[in-house]
Structure formats: C-alpha cells, structure tokens
C-alpha cells in the first residue's frame, strides 16, 4: 500500500484546494441564510474537472482511479467551506454518474455523461419515500410498461439537487409482487410530463445544497430511459451506495483538517487565566482527539479507495469508512464549538455551521445504525 501522491496527483490536489479557497467561499454566510445554491461554484468545480473525475475519458471525464478521486475531493473539502456545494457535487457523482457508467447503454452514456461532467447538467437520485427510508426497497412508487413507455406514479422525499436538477435517477417498482426484485431505475428529465418538484425543503445544515420532493403523477418516460434491466434497481443501488459510502466523506476529511487548523490557531491565540487556552490540558486533549480522528478517517478513506482500485468488492470497508468518518466529523465539529467557547456558538465564527453541516453525514447514504448493521452482517454475525 503506497499512499504517496505522484506529481500529477499532487498538482490536481493543490489546484482543487487553491481554487476552492480562492473562489468558492465568498458570500457563504449570506448564501447559507438564504439557502442559495452556487451555480457559479458548481461550474467552477466542473471546469477544474471535479465532477468528471472518475468518469472514463471517452465520456468526458478524467478517468481517474478511486484513490485519486477521493484525494482530490479531500482537498476540495479542505479549501471549500461551502459544505453544501461539496455535498451536491458528491450526490451528483455517486448517485447518477457512477450508475450511468456501470449500467448505462452506450447511447445513454453518450447522451448524458459529457454534460454531467462539464457542469452543464446537474443530477441526483430519488430513492427515499415518505414510508421507506432505511428499508429502501419497500418503496411504493410504481412503473408500468405501456408499449414503448413506462408510466411512473408515486412520490419521493429528500431528493438532493432536485430543485436545480436536469436529470434524476428515479427508483420505482415494475412488479410490486416481486418486492425488491421488481425495483428498477429510470432516468427522468426535469421536464418529463407528470413530474413535479414540489418544494425546496429547509434543512438543519448543508443549506446551500438544494433538496426537494418529487411527485410523479402518470409521469411518462420512454423505455430507453430505463437504466439497467428491469429489476436491476437493487444491484444498481448497491453499486451506487458502495461508491457513495466509500467516497462521499472525502470532503469531510478535508473539512476536518480545516477545522483542526482553525481550532489550533484559536487555542494558541485566545488567552484565559493568563495563558493561551491550548496550554490547558483539557483543551489540548480535544485538539489531540481531533488530530487522531482526522488521521484515522484519512487512513480509512485512502485504504478503501485503494482496495477498490485493486478490483476488490468493498462493501464492508465502504460502510466502515462512512460510519467512522461521519462520526469523527460530528465529534470534531462538536469539539470545535467547545474550543471556541461562546464564540463557537455564534454564526460569525462559522464553527456552528460546520457542526450543522457535519450532522447530516450520519444520516445520508444510510444512517450510522444501518452502516453498523451491514458491517456486523459482513463480519459473519
């Protein structure tokens, strides 16, 4: 296992961090308050090749391996304080691009991937429903084949990017009697007849990442819009979620490093009882814990990506990386608030926002409880 970066990888990582710090943070406090997505930031990231990182070159991407991909996303997360923007980019990559690459026909790939890589198009997926979250495959949305079309009916919640999306991967059951084996995936365009994006949902954190609900009322798509075979939804979603769990918190690792640096600087500068608060062992030990969490999170992130690049299935490792990094990120953000004292609670210091943003990581891509369930099962329990 060799985690040293080649000059090309190092250059890409540096470029991502520099661009992010210089161009993606301005006006963040106002955007956060208003819940505004930065289309400009999205496009800037795409220009740098972020969205297309792991998409093959022939389809408009960079064809990077998994380790390079998470390495670059880590530095994006370090430079970019707009965790919502980073989250939206990740949702687009893991829940739409990755399944398109693995399950798309040549025609589907040629049609969609170049625009999704260039930043011209925004995407996401719609799996969760009012009555099905963790138990995703019990979804109730149906897809009925009528000649050369499918007619979709149902509703979806928590759809990241929906209010700004051009294309969504919608999961529906073609044969509810077959339960999970009937779940199938459909590429649904924003202007598909019968599709309504009902509202922009307000969240605790990641407020610059738009989220919406979908209502599918006799929503018609052509048979060519089906991604993969009928009934392939479960296989496809597993593939998508394994990529997501292994990679989505790369930006979180970068954010943890940024938080740690902010906290070390604050602990050295803030004096109480006649000395820098970092000299108090109770404060220093929080910083040491933050450092330890950062390093273990990074090691898990890299190792999981490296294993993928070796051609291994990484179901257990991906769930473990997701579980550990999300829990570490939340705990470190809590410590960051504590280290900043009352100032940490004030919006001006931008630490409370980091905590609110981090909290979502315990929930999306499967809650921490679900990650533990998967890991336990794969441990043979």
């Amino acid at each position, binding site marked *: 296992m060799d985690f040293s970066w080649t000059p090309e990888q190092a250059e890409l990582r540096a470029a991502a961090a520099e661009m992010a710090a210089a161009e993606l943070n301005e006006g963040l406090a106002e955007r956060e308050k208003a819940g505004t997505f930065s289309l400009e930031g999205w496009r800037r990231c795409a220009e740098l090749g972020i969205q297309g990182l792991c998409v093959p070159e022939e389809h408009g991407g960079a064809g990077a391996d998994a380790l390079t991909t998470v390495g670059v996303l880590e530095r994006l997360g370090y430079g970019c304080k707009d965790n919502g923007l980073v989250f939206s980019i990740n949702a687009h990559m893991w829940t739409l691009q990755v399944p398109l690459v693995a399950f798309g026909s040549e025609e589907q790939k040629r049609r969609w991937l170049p625009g999704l890589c260039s930043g011209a198009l925004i995407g996401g997926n719609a799996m969760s429903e009012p009555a099905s979250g963790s138990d995703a495959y019990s979804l109730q949305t149906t897809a009925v084949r009528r000649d050369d079309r499918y007619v979709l009916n149902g509703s979806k919640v928590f759809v990241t990017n929906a209010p700004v999306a051009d294309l969504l991967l919608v999961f529906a059951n073609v044969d509810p009697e077959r339960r999970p084996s009937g779940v199938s995936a459909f590429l649904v365009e924003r202007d598909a007849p019968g599709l309504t994006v009902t509202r922009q949902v307000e969240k605790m954190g990641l407020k610059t990442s738009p989220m919406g609900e979908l209502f599918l009322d006799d929503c018609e798509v052509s048979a060519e819009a089906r991604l993969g075979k009928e009934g392939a939804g479960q296989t496809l979603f597993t593939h998508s979620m394994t990529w997501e769990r292994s990679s989505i918190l790369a930006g979180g690792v970068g954010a943890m490093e940024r938080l740690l640096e902010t906290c070390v600087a604050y602990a050295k500068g803030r004096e109480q009882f006649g000395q820098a608060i970092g000299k108090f062992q109770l404060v220093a030990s929080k910083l040491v814990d933050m450092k330890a969490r950062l390093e273990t999170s990074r090691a898990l992130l890299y190792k999981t990506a490296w294993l993928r690049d070796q051609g291994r*299935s990484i179901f257990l490792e991906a769930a473990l990386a997701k579980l550990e990094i999300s829990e570490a990120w939340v705990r470190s953000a809590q410590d960051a608030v504590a280290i900043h004292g009352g100032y940490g609670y004030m919006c001006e210091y931008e630490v409370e926002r980091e905590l609110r943003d981090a909290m979502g990581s315990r929930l999306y891509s499967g809650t921490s409880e679900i990650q533990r369930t998967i890991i336990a099962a794969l441990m043979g329990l």
Partner: protein
Amino acid sequence: MVPKEQIQASVKQFILSEFLSGEDADELEPTTPLVSAGILDSIATLKLVTFLEEQFSVQIEAHEADVDHLNTVEDISNLVLSKL
C-alpha cells in the same frame, strides 16, 4: 481448474450455514430459487459476493450481482466457473 461440483458444494455449504441454518440440506437443490424466494436479500447478497470473491479469487462485476446470475446454486456456480 476447480470442478463445477466442487464449486457447487462450496456455495451450497455457504448458503446453508449463513442463510438457511437448521434447514434440511437436501431441500437446497441446484435449482432452488434464492433471490426470488427472498433467501438472498440485499445484505445476504453482499455476503455472498464477498464470499465468492475471496473463496475463488474472482471479481464479480456490479451488474452480475443480480437475480439472473445469483438466483440458484447452479447460476452462482456457472458465474464463478465463467471467471476461472
């Protein structure tokens, strides 16, 4: 080359011990449906794929982890055999 009978026996043993413990081994035939009968649910499929990759040093592609390739002991063994 591992003979098909050996692959089948190994797969059958794994399925019996992991997902059908206490069941009569004779009930699990090469053509008994596993996915469509709900014996292999989503997490069980992850376990099975991990087992196949480790046991036979093969790589199962994302699109192969489905009902067409994993529904019976026979299907699973054919998939493994095609990769050896």
